């Protein structure tokens, strides 16, 4: 190493610390950061499950059947799957901050999370919780107004409503 050119960074750093130019962030800042990131991760996964469930629920009610895809896309509230994907991406981004995430194959973590969200959403959809949520309680506002469906085991066409 070129010792002659070596700049004494030790003094520069210590001067900044001792003069108070740079200060340590307090402990509560990091504790709060961890709590918020955990809440954010949990919240984004729950939201991703809910909106995936809502997407599956609406697909089940509207089709898609052969020849009806364009009609379905016309009427389908496309913001719902977009929000589901948004929360999924947010969840992945937050998950990446955790230590264990880089020790494992991240692709497997993404696939596992995606599968878990999809299965959970499917279970909620099949349990008929959408009927309850779409008709009463604070979740009702999140359901498209003209879709207060009763649970049906088989899809109904958009023309058959």
């Amino acid at each position, binding site marked *: 190493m070129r010792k002659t050119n070596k700049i004494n*960074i030790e003094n520069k*750093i210590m001067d900044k610390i001792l003069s108070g130019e740079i200060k*340590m962030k*307090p402990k509560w800042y*990091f504790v709060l950061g961890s709590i918020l990131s955990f809440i954010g991760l949990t919240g984004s996964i729950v939201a991703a499950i809910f909106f995936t469930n809502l997407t599956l629920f609406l697909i089940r009610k509207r089709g898609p059947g052969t020849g009806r895809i364009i009609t379905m896309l016309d009427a389908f509230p496309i913001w719902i799957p977009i929000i589901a994907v948004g929360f999924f991406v947010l969840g992945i981004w937050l998950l990446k901050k955790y230590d264990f995430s880089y020790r494992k194959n991240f692709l497997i973590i993404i696939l596992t999370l995606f599968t878990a969200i999809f299965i959970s959403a499917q279970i909620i959809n099949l349990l008929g919780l959408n009927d309850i949520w779409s008709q009463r309680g604070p979740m009702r506002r999140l359901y498209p107004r003209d879709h207060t469906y009763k649970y049906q085991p088989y899809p109904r066409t958009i023309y058959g409503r």
Partner: protein
Amino acid sequence: MKHSEIKSKTDEEIVEIVRNYNKEQFVYLVRRYEDKLIRYAQYLIGDYDKANDAVQQAFIKAYINLNGFDLKKKFSSWIYRIVHNEAINLIGKDKKTVIINPDIDFDSGENTEEDYLKGELVAHTHECLKKMALIYREPISLYYLENKSYKEIGDILRLPIGTVSVRINRAKVILKKICEKQIK
């Protein structure tokens, strides 16, 4: 606290002292890692002055975020990671001007397969490293030149140990080819 007392303390113990009692003791962490980190940043950036800037910036960031450091982890991996990020930022900003500095000195080893590679690396470092992609340059310089374990490299580069192993093995092959060409 006496100079000899603090010298016998681990990095993590010094971090605890800096956090809770005496911020001036941070200087011991700077002294312990300054040269190693500048050398590592230099492998990545290829410019001594920029490596210096990256390390200075890394120490400042480390100090600011010292309360966020988990004492169960290794401080060395943490500070290498910060330097790595700073270096990558600089490389990103200044991709076109990256050159490998020829004035880096290294330790040499005995005549084993590993040391052969190390020897080759020592002799032709700047030329060999210059021709390697960054993803191989990072782990191999940490492994051979900084003597870091696979686990530490994984912690620094945020990679699974398996990936570190694969990259080092590939880097060895690439390095051998590059160095052989250099010799010819």
